[in-house]
Structure formats: C-alpha cells, structure tokens
C-alpha cells in the first residue's frame, strides 16, 4: 500500500509544522526542512480583493505593488534590490482572499528579511508620483493578463455572472475604469484598515527551528502594535440563485470555439465536513488527465473535441467553484459537445463514481501531495493559503486522511447536492472574423502601411 509510506515519507522530509502566536496576535507557523541551507519566509494577510470597498476594485492588488515603494528606513524601490544583493528572491501575490509577500534567501539572511517585512507592515511611505507611475504599471498588467486574452475576458464575465452579490463577482486585478482612478489615499486607507500583526500569518519553511523563528519573530513582528479595528471577515453573501445563466463572448482573437460551465459550490472552509474532499475526488475522476471520464468519452471514444476536462477550486474562504470545459472543432459543434457534457453530468448525478475510479483518484492526489512536500516553497504556500482561508494546522495535516475516507456514496451525495444548474453559468467563446481596420474596435492606426 502506498498510504503508510506516504505519511512517514512526508514527515521525514519536512518535519512537523508547529505554530504559536505572538502577544500582539500574529500567528506564526514553522516548517523545518534541513536538506538545503535556504529559507522561504512568507507573510500572509487575511485580506484580499473580496474585502475591497465597492468602487475601488483592484486596490488590494495595487497596494501589494505599492508595498515595495519603501518606508523611512528603506528608500523607494530598494526593497527588492536589497533582497537581491543578499542573493535572495522576492515577490508577492494577491487573490480574492489573501495577500502574501515572500522572500527566498540563505538561512543566515532570515533576520534581515524579517526586519524589512515587519517594517513595511506598519511604516509604508507613499508619494503621489510613485503611486501614479505604479498605477500605469497595473493597467499594463491588466492589459497583459486580461485585455489581450479573450479566454481571460470570458472567465471574468462568467465569474461576474456566477456571483450575483458576493465580491468574488469582481476580478482581483480590478475593473479597468476603477483601477484608472485608484489614489494614494485609497491605498493608504486600505493599508491602515488591514495591515497589522493581528491580521497576518508568518510562515517560515526551511533550514530553521521553531526556537530560532520564535526569537526572531519576537524581536521584529513582536514589537508592532496590534490594530483594534481588525475584525473577522464578513462579506455579502449570495442570495438564492434561481436561474442558470448563459453568455457568449465573440472575439476575433479567439483561437477555437470553446464551451465552459461553472458551478457555485462550497469550498474547503465553507463546506460541510468531507464535502470538499468528495468534490475534489469527483472532479479528478471526471475531468483530470487522459484517464478521466471526459477525456475518454469525449475525445477518445466519440471524437467530439480535441481537448476537454474539469476541475474543482476549493481554496476560497466563502465558496468554491467547479468548472468543465471543452474545445470544439467548429462553432456548430458546440451544442453537441455541451449536450455530451450535460449527459455525463447527469450520469454522475445518477450513478456516482466506482470504487476503482475513486481509489485511483486518491492515489494520484496522495502522490502529488508527496511531491509537493518535497518543495519548501510549495509547503509554505500550502500552509499559508489554508491558514489564511480559515483552516487549521490540524485540517491541513489531516487532509490525506480525510481524502482516504471519502466513499463512492459521499461522492454521489455531493454530486446530487451541488451539480445544480440553477447555480451555474455556461459561457461560450466564439471566434469572429478579423474586423476590418475601419470597423475594428481597436485603436485606428494613424497612417496605414503600404506594404
């Protein structure tokens, strides 16, 4: 059996994670891994794009960029340069639920990055000009990620339709027209409201002990005052969803006709016990890889589509999502392909999955889990994400056991409960002919070239 050696293997590789809290309320998690003399140091804030005030979409991510603009101790733009001169790498990211900052450094540089990260938690200095220049950068970022990419535009439209009231409705990077108006004051307001030790989780993975981290954390983050304004997060919830939604994006830049289906489902932190694990395994069986039901039936047996699949995203604080997709050879094939997916979903809801399918899906996930545990950055992220979205250390470490306990009956139950078309959005990407220059929506060129 795989399972026993998996658990012991992981324990040997990474050691047991431990946790403690500082008196100011900052939570600390240490994941020892002594194989290489390097450290991953991460600070996770329990704040993300879903915590923004309406009308300031993108401010959480914008602030993430601005956090590199300096303090009274660190001049503008120097943060990353200092880390680099120490042979380290740094970056940051924002989701709907979390904002995280990290550095990967040699172990003896840990005190330095802890000082710097603690400093910018409360001492950020922003000047007007720097803010406006960085605003141009995030507008370019949106153009790169979204405006230049019809698949991303469709995903944005579908998410906006899937969430009718909850702020997951709004894209993390923000709507262009609101991003263009974000101000220095918006950023500072958001910063003061959300950045504080009692709203943060420190995760240190690598060649370090809990004692080392405790001492360093007390000397750095431990000196910061907690913020009494920090409250548990509570976002507007979804009303009952009563009607399936459909939309179509026609775009000359689309490569192939494609159909997508999203369902609003619970996440690991919002689901009843065991449901998220069952949804995870259900989608592995349905849509992941060349042995999945969808690939076998739609691609191999019926030759309807070159590419199809599906997945469960269960990492959200308030809810999760199930997605199915398939590429169509021609626009005219979309109906047939969508009908096929619907038929497969109906079969799933009627009959569930077999014991054999479930057992293979578990094996695959447990193997992934081992491989991920071989990597200190992935480990730090696994713990950070889960803790910032409402899970406990125990929840994280017992995940393999909970996964193993899922039965075919559990899968059948969540399929029946959650694959509900009234909580879904179906989106189609339809390639259009390239518009002529005079009629095209893009900027019209000043002087048309002659050759």
């Amino acid at each position, binding site marked *: 059996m795989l399972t026993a050696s998996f658990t012991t293997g992981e324990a040997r590789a990474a050691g047991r994670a431990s946790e403690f809290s500082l008196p100011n309320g900052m939570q600390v998690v240490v994941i020892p891994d002594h194989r290489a003399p390097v450290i991953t140091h991460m600070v996770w804030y329990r704040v993300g794009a879903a915590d923004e005030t309406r009308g300031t979409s993108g401010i959480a991510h914008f602030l993430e960029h601005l956090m590199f603009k300096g303090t009274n101790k660190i001049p503008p733009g120097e943060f990353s340069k200092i880390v680099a001169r120490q042979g380290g790498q740094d970056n940051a990211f924002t989701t709907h639920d979390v904002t995280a900052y990290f550095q990967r450094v040699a172990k003896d540089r840990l005190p330095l990055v802890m000082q710097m990260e603690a400093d910018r938690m409360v001492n950020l200095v922003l000047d007007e000009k720097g803010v406006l*220049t960085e605003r141009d950068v995030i507008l370019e970022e949106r153009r790169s990620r979204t405006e230049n990419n019809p698949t991303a535009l469709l995903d944005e439209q579908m998410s906006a339709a899937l969430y009718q009231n909850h702020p997951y409705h709004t894209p993390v990077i923000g709507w262009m027209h609101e991003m263009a108006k974000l101000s220095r004051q918006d950023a500072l307001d958001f910063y003061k409201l959300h950045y504080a030790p009692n709203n943060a989780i420190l995760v240190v993975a690598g060649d370090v002990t809990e004692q080392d981290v405790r001492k360093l954390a007390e000397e750095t983050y431990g000196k910061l005052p907690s913020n009494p304004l920090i409250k548990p997060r509570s976002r507007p919830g979804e009303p009952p969803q009563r009607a399936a939604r459909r939309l179509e994006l026609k775009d000359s830049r689309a490569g192939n006709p494609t159909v997508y289906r999203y369902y609003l489902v619970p996440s690991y932190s919002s689901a009843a016990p065991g449901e998220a694990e069952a949804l995870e395994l259900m989608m592995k069986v349905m849509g992941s890889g060349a042995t999945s039901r969808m690939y076998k039936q739609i691609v191999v047996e019926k030759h309807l589509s070159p590419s199809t699949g599906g997945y469960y995203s269960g990492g959200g604080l308030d809810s999760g999502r199930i997605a199915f997709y398939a590429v169509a050879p021609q626009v005219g094939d979309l109906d047939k392909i969508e009908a096929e997916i619907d038929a497969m979903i109906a079969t799933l809801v009627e009959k569930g999955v077999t014991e054999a399918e479930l057992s293979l899906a578990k094996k695959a996930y447990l193997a992934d889990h081992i491989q991920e545990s071989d990597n200190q950055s992935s480990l730090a992220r696994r713990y950070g994400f889960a803790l910032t979205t409402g899970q406990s250390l125990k929840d994280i470490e017992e995940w393999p056991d909970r996964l193993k306990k899922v039965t075919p009956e559990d899968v059948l139950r969540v399929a029946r409960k959650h694959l509900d078309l009234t909580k879904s959005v179906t989106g189609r990407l339809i390639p259009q002919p390239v518009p002529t220059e005079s009629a095209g929506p893009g900027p019209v060129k000043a002087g048309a070239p002659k*050759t």
Partner: protein
Amino acid sequence: MRFLRSRTTPSRVAAITAACLLFWISTPAMAMKIQSVKSPGGIEAWLVEEHSVPLFAMHFAFEGGSSQDPEGKPGVAHFITAMLDEGAGELTSTQFQEQMEEFVLRMSFDAGKDSFYGTFQALSENRDKATDLLRLALTRPRFEEQAVERIKKQLLSSLAFEAKSPDNVAAKEWYATAFPGHPYGRPMKGTPESVGQIGKQDLETYHKRVFARDTLKVAVVGDIDAATLAAMLDKVFGALPAKASLTAVPTVAPAAGQTKVIDMNVPQSVVQFGLKAVPRKDKEFVPAFVLNHILGGGGFSSRLMEEVREKRGLAYSVYSYVQPFARTAIFGGGVATKNESIEESLDVIRSELKRMAEQGPTPEELAGAKSYLTGSYALRFDTSPKIAGQLLAIQIEDLGIGFIDQRNAQIDAVTMEDVRRVAKLLLQPDNMIVTVVGRPAGNTAKALPTAAQGQPKKG
C-alpha cells in the same frame, strides 16, 4: 502578482562528456555529493542520493530537438513529445495511461531546439513497474494511427490558440526573422499545414534517428543508490541504438537589424527583441551573463525594469536574457506596452542598450549582480527535480562534474573591464531584430511592413 516574467530562459546546449569510472565529487557549496555512475552496458548518469523522501526524479536528454525535424515538416519532435505515453510495447494508449495511473508515475517530454528532453518521477515502491513503463515509452512507442490522429487534433487546436496569442506570435516571428532558412528559424511546434501532414512514418523515422545512447545524458536525484541506478540505466535505455543519425545543423548568427510588425487587434503590443550573443564556452560568456543581469535579467535590480517600469510605468513586464544554443547564441528580451506607448518603450530600451555599451555598468551594479548571482545559486538546488534539471544542463553544456563548485568563482572573477568590453561587443541596438505584435501607434507602425492577423509573414 508583483512580477511575472512571460517566459523562462533556460540555457541549454548539447555536447558530449566521457567518464569511465564510477566516482563522486562532493560539492561543499550545495552540501551534496554527485556520483558519476556507469552501467554495465556503458550508459552514464550523474546521481545525487536523497533518501529522505520515498521518490526519485530522472531527467534525461537526447541531442536533436526540433532542429532535427525533417526539412519542410517542422513540428515532428514536438509531436513526439505528446506520443510517447500514448501506447508502447504490448500496451495500447488507454492501457498505458491506466498503468501510469496505477503506478502513480509522472513522465513528460519536451523538444528544445537542440535537445529532446524527458523528465520522470516515481515513488520508490513503484520503481520497477514505473521504469518498465519508461523503458517501453522510450524504446517501443507504438505511434498508433488512432492516437496519432487524436493528438494531431490537439496539436492543431493548440496551434490555433497560439496563432492568436501575441506572446507566442512575437517569439515565433523573432526566430523566423533571425534565422531564415535555418532549422532555428522554423516554428518548433510546426504550422497547421506541416502538422496536418505528419504521420506515423515521420514519427518512427525521427525516433530511430534521435533516440540513441551516444548522445544520451541522464541525471537522477532521489531515493536510489548507485548500483540500483546502474542496472536501471541498462534496463531503460539499453535497447536503444548505439548511435544517433543526426542531420548536421550549421552554425549561424542572427540576421541583423530588422523590425517586423504583425498586426493583431489587441490593446497592448507585445515585443520580442534580440541580438547576437556569445556561445556558452566562449570566454566572454560569463561576463555576458553578468551584463545581462545588470541590464535586464535581474528583475527589479535591472536597468530596463528601472527605466521602463519603475520610472515611467510603461510596462508590467520588461526583461532580457542570454540564451546559448548549440549553433548560435542570443541576447534577447521582451516588453509589453499599450499600443499608444510602444514606441516610447522601444526608444527607452534602445537608449539603455546604447548607454550600457558606451558607459558600462557602475561598480555598485556589478557588485550587486555578483552578490545576487552567487548568493542565489543555492536556490536552484532546493528540490530533487530542480537538482536533476541543473545536473542535466551542466552535462549538456559539457561544463564538467566539478562545475557547481567553480561556478561562483567564475562570476566573482568578472571585472568592470570585462563587462564594459562585452557590452560594447554585444549591445548594438542598430543590429537588433524586433518583432512587434499588436497595433502600435506612431512610427513603429508607419515605417514598417505588416502582415494579416493570424497569417504572420514568414521571414
């Protein structure tokens, strides 16, 4: 995310090494021991034992890659990367996939310009079964008609997506413009026409010519000892032909000084630019590598990032890289800026290249680059797959088993004079080949020829 680079730039060159004995070298810098293992059948591999996790990773490469695609049929090597787990030996495609799932192993293949790469990971307890499947995939792929047709549809579908992706088109057009008539100028994934014509015969021919023991390089990291690995090497690779039969690929330099605009209806133009660089084994390579870090390889520490993004807010991503191939070398880079401002971005980049060529870096920049490059080297060795990847690249580049411990000294030895000299040699903005995908405003658009969207002009 604060910074996401739109492409990675591994440096991969093929060469041959010879090691006759089993020996090991300890690399104090990384606290690990690299063993050179030779199988009874004469196959060599580098091994780092790591028994704390019950799995192992094997990375390997054959010389060849897409530059061995037959003339007029680009995309064969890439096609094969998707076919090796689609049935082999007595196993049909479905059976093979089911066995892979049963024994929870991962195998993936990739065709670079000069090498055909494979990566493989398995749990210790499945070692025999898993390596059996790898052996079948490499030595007895079936290339069955049905699987070929199915994969062909997937490849064509993915080509249709990429034809509308500004990043992909900019990169593909850059190579077509830089290397007309040379294998490096061909689209690595082929064209809809060429992929449409590729059949079982093409795949079999390529497989016979390229998958051979004499150009094979292997690196293994994980829960396995030298004796077990030696036997495994013969089992997995032993049945391959002794010698590859490769088409000669001539040495080539990028064609100098062209700008090409490919019209696409997007709000942001995507640019690839590049110049000739120096080969991996040239004495100027390490100075060029350091120069690149200062100019555009070093993220927020680099001049391009400072001037284009931090000072002017013109782009989210701007970068440069040095990429040595087996038969050429490139100093390249990229930027993406809204159509109205692309000209300003390009002007800034050109003037930064010029300034660096004329004045070189500051002593602080050189010191900062060295301390980053030497200090961060250990971060490339913190997981088994990453170590295996590094060991394979060092073998392919023929740098020797002691390279890891010499590498930081080579960087530290680079002087201001070295960087100035190499900057003057390489950074000649007038020779730059630039491909722009989008609807750039201003002179960039006016002065230059365009091609229809989705049907970019071939260089």
